[in-house]
Each structure stands twice: as C-alpha cells, then as structure tokens.
C-alpha cells in the first residue's frame, strides 16, 4: 500500500515540478504580451502576440490575400513590415525578390507577432472583408464557363470599385482535402451591394474551378473575401477607352460597363473581345444591349478558330489583329486589358507599337 502511495506521490511530484517549470517558462519566455500593430502610420490596434501576422490580422477583420491558407506556399500574403519583423526566415526567401527585401516586404503568414510592428498595407486591402453568402443561380455560359450569382447572407454590404476581384473559398471536397482561396473578378454592377456575380472558367486540375464546376449547386453556402485589386477605370481622365479581353476576362469589363451606364460616362469606348468560335462569345447579347444604351460604346468581337466557310461576318483572328486594324495611334487613349498572361503580353506589345505608354495601359492578369 505505502509502495503505491509513494510511487504515485513521486511520479506526481516530478510531473508537477516539470509542469510548474514549463508554465513559468510559458509565462516569461513564450509570452510576447500585448503588441501594438500600426498600419500605414495611421490605424493602430493592440493584439496578443505569439501568432502569425496573417492570422492576427484576420482576427482584426483585416484580410490580406492568401491562396494557400497560411502555409507559405502561395506567396500572396506579402506586406511591408517596417519594424518588428526580425530577420527574413528561410521559408520566405523563395518568394521575396531583391526589390521586395529593400522595401521590407515579408510574408505575413510566416512572420510572428513578437513585438510592436509598423506595417505598410495598400489602402484598398484594408477595405477587404469576409462575407458569408449563398449561390442564388448558376448559368452555363458555355461548356467550360459558368456564371454565378451569389447573394450575401450575413447582412453585410459589399462596396467595390468595378474591376476589382474577390477571393472565393472552396471548402474541402472529394479529391481536395484542404480549403483553398482563388481570386475571381467581380462581374456585377457595383451598385448592387447585397449580391455579386462571377464568371468562372473551368481550368483542368484547378482546385477552385473544379469545385465550382463539379460540386457547386444552387442554394449552396459559400464564403468569399475582398474586394482586392487596383484594376479599375481611371475616372479623372476623359480619354477614349480601349477595352481588351478574352474568355473570362470579360468579367471586370462587364462591371466597368455597368459603371459607365450608371454614372453616364460617355467617353468613346471600344471593346475588343477575343474568343475561339461564335458560341464562346459569352454574354454577347448583353454587350449588344450596352451598345444601345451607351451611345459611344462599340463591341467588337474577334474569333480565332473559324473554318474558312463559316458565315461569321465580324472580325477574324486574335485581339492583337483587331488592335492593328482599328487603332491608329495612342493619342488620347487609355487601354484596359484583362485575360491570360499570354494574351496580355502580346496585346501590350502591340499597343506599345502603336505608341501607348505604360502609364495608359492598365491590366488585370488572370494567372
């Protein structure tokens, strides 16, 4: 009997002493206390130190873009940390360019909050919030492009500039065990504050596009955060507008057209939209309607994969051919491009040949 009591007593006291020691260590070594985070030398808040900057900011309802969910694999959650970040970590180096390092750019999912911090975050990111919503309707625009209308259900309103994007969350589904975020441009009018519309193309093995195309149904709960992005109409100028898009790049352009309609912007506007065949001209009817509503707007689709005997009477070729054909010079013009990196690259090259400078070319690259 005594033997049992002694054994238990000694084991307990050894464990007790160790537990006490670790608790003290936790109090004095691992406790980073309250830290003050200052953003853009303006906003300040006090947080409990110890977690990563990304999750700390999330708790403060500040959403930096992040596609991998804080695992340090996507490199999207970059932000400038001017003070309090400590040395660059090995997990960050592959995402930071020399220029980033000079500007104190770090990956916020890797840096832990251990002291007071001075951050630099672009203003438009500060407006991003998280929304709970439900899929109101799904339309198949083509075999590979879906049009989603999503209604916000948590009594929030979304305030965005046409051209910006949101990040849609795909929950785990068969074949993908983890939550992932991907960015999609808002296609709806910014005056609609309680719902959004997205145009999502299917990408083979794309994690979120697979979810949207194979698993998502009307009535499903979804969540997204945003708005993000600096692609939007420059409102303080009154030049001609050249819009160029292919495929789902139509989305932000559609939003911008709504904006022009609602704000009665009657700058001369030409929209070159590239597609393969006539059935890939998504939302062509809407574009023709815009042509009627907006007096100075013209829609110029261009098709690249037509047979020679096809009755199509419009332009043939690629969007770069249309630039060549319709644009004489860069005088008094601004260009807005949206689509795949390959298209953007060749179109920008073409525009530069015509005399466009970097200052008047705006683009949103769909990676």
């Amino acid at each position, binding site marked *: 009997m005594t033997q049992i009591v*002694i*054994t238990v007593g*000694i*084991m307990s006291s*050894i*464990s007790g002493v*160790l*537990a006490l*020691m*670790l608790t003290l*260590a*936790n109090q004095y*070594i*691992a406790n980073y206390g309250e830290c003050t985070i200052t953003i853009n030398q303006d906003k300040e808040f006090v947080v409990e130190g110890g977690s990563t900057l990304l999750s700390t900011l999330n708790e403060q309802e500040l959403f930096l873009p992040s596609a991998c969910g804080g695992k340090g694999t996507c490199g999207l959650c970059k932000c400038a940390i001017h003070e309090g970040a*400590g*040395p660059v*970590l*090995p*997990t960050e180096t592959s995402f930071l360019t020399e220029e980033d390092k000079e500007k104190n750019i770090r990956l916020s999912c*890797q840096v*832990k909050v*251990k002291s007071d911090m001075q951050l630099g975050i672009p203003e438009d990111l500060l407006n991003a919030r998280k929304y709970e919503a439900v899929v109101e309707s799904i339309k198949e625009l083509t075999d590979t492009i879906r049009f989603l209308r999503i209604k916000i259900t948590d009594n929030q309103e979304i305030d965005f500039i046409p051209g910006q994007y949101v990040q849609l969350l795909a929950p785990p589904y068969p074949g993908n065990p983890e939550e992932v975020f991907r960015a999609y441009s808002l296609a709806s009018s910014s005056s609609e504050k309680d719902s959004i519309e997205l145009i999502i193309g299917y990408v083979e093995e794309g994690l979120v596009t697979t979810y949207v195309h194979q698993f998502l149904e009307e009535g499903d709960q979804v969540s997204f955060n945003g708005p993000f992005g600096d692609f939007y109409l420059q409102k303080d100028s009154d030049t001609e507008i050249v819009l160029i898009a292919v495929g789902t790049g139509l989305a932000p352009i559609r939003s911008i057209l709504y904006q022009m309609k609602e704000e009665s912007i009657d700058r001369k506007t030409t929209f070159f939209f590239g597609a393969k065949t006539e059935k890939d001209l998504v939302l062509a009817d809407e574009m023709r309607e815009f042509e009627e509503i907006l007096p100075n707007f013209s829609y110029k689709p261009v098709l690249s994969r037509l047979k020679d005997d096809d009755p199509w009477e419009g332009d043939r070729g690629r969007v770069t051919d249309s630039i060549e054909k319709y644009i004489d010079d860069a005088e008094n013009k601004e260009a807005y491009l949206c689509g795949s990196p390959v298209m953007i690259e060749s179109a920008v090259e073409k525009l530069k040949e015509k005399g466009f400078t970097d200052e008047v070319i705006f683009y949103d690259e769909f990676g």
Partner: protein
Amino acid sequence: MEINPLVIFMASIFTNNMILANFLGMCSFIAVSKEIKTAWGLGQAVTFVLTGTSILNYLIYHHILVPYDLEYLRFIVFIILIAAFVQLVEMIVERYVPTLYYSLGIFLPLITVNCAILGVSLFMVIRDYNLIQSAFFGLGSGIGWALAIVALAGIRQKIKSAPVPQGLEGPGITLIIIGLMALAFIGFSGIANVQ
C-alpha cells in the same frame, strides 16, 4: 574502477559515438543533414539537451528513484523529463533564434524522441557513472552527435553536384555515406575503449 571523466568524454565523441558506433538518433540525423548550417544548429540543440538531461536524470535517478526503490520507473521519468526539457529549449530557440527555429522545423520537437538522448540516460545508469562522469558523458555524446551530423552535412553538400545514380539519390546514398563514416570512426577505436 573509476574511469576518468575526460576519458569518457573523448570516448563518447570518437570511439563510442552515439550515431556512428551505436546507431542511435538516426531519424533527424538523416533528415536535417542537408545543410551544414542547420545541421550545426540541431547539433547544438542536441548537445544542450543531452548535457542538461543527463545531469537532471542522474540527479532524479540517484536522489529520488533509488532511495525509494523506484528504479523501474526510470523509462517514464526519463522520458517526461526529456520532453519537458525539449519543450523549454523549443521556447527559448523560438524566442531568441527564430531563423534557426524555422529551419529546424519539426525536428526540434522531435529531439524528444531522439533515441540518442534516452540512450545516454540509460547507458549512464547501466554503466553506473557518477554525476561528473554522467555530465561529461552527456556533453561528449552531444558533441559527437553534432560532429557526425555536421560532417555528414558537409559531405552531402559536396555530393549535391555529383552524378549519383538515380535510385540512390537522397536517403539511399546518405545511408551509404553513414556506413562509410562509421567504418572510418572504427579507426579511433584504439584510442579509448569504454563500455
């Protein structure tokens, strides 16, 4: 016979090297030996933990377990003490050397179950060392482990540019290197032999 602690110290580095003579602690030895810098960091951490735990385990064993006839509890006691000690080291490293903390990753907490560490505490009991001998044994084993992992990392860095046959890349060639290193360390066996 009382063995000179310095002899134990030298023996545990060279002739009775934890890895190359006893093959204990292989897991992190293979996993964290890609770069000299991280290998050296883990080597230091292991050395620190080994020295600390061999002293603390000695004190607990001889001053608490032996007087109460509880020697049979030594496995569980040694293990929780090692675990608590590693936890403490982890907190310290995270706070003061964050770069090392991130490059060691999961292998820092895994020192807890590094069998070299439990091995040292158990050898110390079996061989009936006194406190000073145990301390030198722990320190020596740690340095020996660190020396071996840094040497291995050095070789692996060199071999990166060598045309290793495809099937042997990574752990395969590493095991062969470790075997050759162990053979080389047999060359020390005449210096001091302590069992």
